[in-house]
């Protein structure tokens, strides 16, 4: 069991967790993720690590409520436990000095872009960050991103904060203004990453995106997370999660991510009905496990 040392909403439906996971904290590098399972009947889902503190033995994750598992996770509070957390998984981001890097975070993707932006900055790059969200209250990690960026551009889809528009509009402006861009890193919803890829492919700008397909084990064992890269299957869990955007078949990614839509919808409907009993189940598993280990909560 993994103890949640701190949990707080940083935006509506978006929660940050500080989790006690000393082994993972010791090894984590930017770009890597964990797979977690909340309770015995739970599924395994991948979540990118925002950052870690090896001394304290903690990792941070930022979770947006989307389906049943993320809703249930976001219902957990400080000093609750998560049954299983495994990692750090995936290849770390390739961090090198390239010159100017544009780091783009769409929605909760900003939390995943953040550690890489910080690492790129530490490696001596000029970092221009572009973050965006649907509206004002969903803009996250603005302060953190500003600290690790030479320049920070912010957009909201509805114009309730900063500039109205998409993060891709800002990228377009940078390209059109002849800003030298040596690398783009984009993390966010698939349509956003796909739009970035389409834009930078034409400009021949090296572009990396972080994919989040359906995964189970996360160690290369099942092949469920396979993505088509240059027409060949690669596993996002061990060959990724970051890939050269120009080589990804996004259509297949979208198609495969929709594979369980019907079941996911049913789970979500069940969750809304059974939220309290599920939480009670999580807590009783916790108590049983803690009793077994001879420790209190």
């Amino acid at each position: 069991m993994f103890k949640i040392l701190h949990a707080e909403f940083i935006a509506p439906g978006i929660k940050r967790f500080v989790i006690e996971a000393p082994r993972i904290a010791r090894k984590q590098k930017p770009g890597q993720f964990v797979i977690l399972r909340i309770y015995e009947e739970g599924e395994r889902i991948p979540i990118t690590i925002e950052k870690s503190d090896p001394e304290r033995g903690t990792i941070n994750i930022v979770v947006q409520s989307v389906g049943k598992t993320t809703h249930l996770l976001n219902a957990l509070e400080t000093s609750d436990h998560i049954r299983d957390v495994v990692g750090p998984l995936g290849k770390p981001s390739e961090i090198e000095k390239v010159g100017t890097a544009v780091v783009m975070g769409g929605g909760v993707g900003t939390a995943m872009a953040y550690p890489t932006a910080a690492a790129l900055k530490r490696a001596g790059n000029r970092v221009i960050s572009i973050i965006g969200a649907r509206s004002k209250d969903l803009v996250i990690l603005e302060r953190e991103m500003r600290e690790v960026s030479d320049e920070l551009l912010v957009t909201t889809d509805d114009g309730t904060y900063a500039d109205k528009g998409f993060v891709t509009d800002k990228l377009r402006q940078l390209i059109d203004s002849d800003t030298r861009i040596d690398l783009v890193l984009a993390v966010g919803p698939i349509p956003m990453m796909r739009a970035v890829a389409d834009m930078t492919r034409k400009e021949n700008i090296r572009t990396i995106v972080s994919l989040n397909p359906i995964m189970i084990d996360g160690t290369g064992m099942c092949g469920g997370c396979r993505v088509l890269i240059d027409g060949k299957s690669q596993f996002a869990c061990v060959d990724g999660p970051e890939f050269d955007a120009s080589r990804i078949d996004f259509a297949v990614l979208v198609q495969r991510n929709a594979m369980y839509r019907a079941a996911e919808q049913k789970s979500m409907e069940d969750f809304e009905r059974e939220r309290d009993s599920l939480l009670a189940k999580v807590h009783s598993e916790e108590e049983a496990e803690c009793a077994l280990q001879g420790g209190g909560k």
Partner: protein
Amino acid sequence: MSPTATKSPNPVPIKERMKVPRQAMREQDPLLRAHNFKEVNLGYSEELARREAQRCLECAKPTCITTCPVSVKVKDFVELIVAGDYMGAAAKIREDNVLPAITGRVCPQEDHCEGGCLMGKKVQPLGIGYLERFAADYEQRHMDLSQIRRAERTGKKVAIVGSGPSGLTAAGDLVQKGHQVRVFEALHELGGVLVYGIPEFRLPKQIIREQIDYMRAMGVEFETNVVVGKTVTIDELMLEEGYDAVFIGTGAGAPQFMGIPGEHLNGVYSANEFLTRINLMHAYEFPAYDEPMLDFRGKPVAVIGGGNTALDAIRSALRLGAGKAYVLYRRSEAEMPARIEEVKHAKQEGIEFHMLTAPVEFLSDGKGWLNAARCIRMQLGEPDASGRRRPVPIEGSEFELPLSIAVIAIGTNANPLIQTTTPGLATNKRNYIEADVETQRTSKKGVFAGGDIVTGSATVILAMGAGRRAAKSIHEYLTTGSW
């Protein structure tokens, strides 16, 4: 009824024993079991077990023992069953095999003990697997874990990477020598392939849990959620965490795809993914469990391959409600590597076997979902490197098979996580770990390996044999210090 345990407990005269038919195992009715995930085989009663055990010819040179990869003393344990000493029989098996309830269920006995049984030359061989299972299950119902004696500690620490059959065997043997043993498992559940690969109807999870509880009682420590190579490296285990030796038993573990068009379509699974969803994640119990599964009801489903994994997958598909359940295998039934009993069970349940058939392309419904496979017929040519006759495509024999779901079960590749993060660990050209066939030593001092990560996909019992050899040579290494 109960025979008295004297010098020769078997009341049946030797000459009469061959006349007694092999006692059938009770099993769930095929029509019923095709719709549930409960165990197919139901076990022997004490009476059936004794009657079967009495068939043993008590050979002077028992070839059932020499054909067993872990050399279980078959003759001795069978004699104890004849005598009615079932706990004694289980203890006798445990001297050589720490997972008797598991091997009694999943071993391909026809290739080992029962293949070596002299009676099999004339009539049906002794039901050694069934008897092993009987003794193990009897022990499980009657034992007291608190009575297990722990060996005196040597002060040496051994890390076991992977909680599958080779790792558990090595752990069990080493803890009995008094070493401190800790097993690291990448998944959240212990048992490796026994848990994620083999379905409930063939090996109930409860059985695995009980075998692991037994090992805990022996003193083995377990840590889940540790991906060695990611969470911690082999070098860190040895240099920072103080392990004197490491055994790598991670299994082959990376799925092989066919490399044919359409493999990315929705509805095409690797056997590893399909079985992991079912077995580890309980997707067949959705929505009581959260892991989803596609709706199989009434749909045509095929598995590609002819091994135990292929049969496990297609029989699972049938239980999920598949309307048609096909096995597509590129060779003929004689070359199928699956256990004979599984083939029999699958046929009883209504699985259709299409031999000498292989898909060449998966076809889409235009919306990204599988809707058919273009297949080709094969004929058998000259033997290949495996000694089996090579399948050769018959030109012009292509046909389309309507399919909603396909499961690819053609084998596995080496998972490279450990090889790429362990300096000094030699691998062969297929990226399996090089290990001595006798001692299981790798090229790296203090590091041993065995099971599928050395040999490629094999069986539970062969992996256990490797774990056993490794434990023996790890003990030697820890005792003598010489490499």
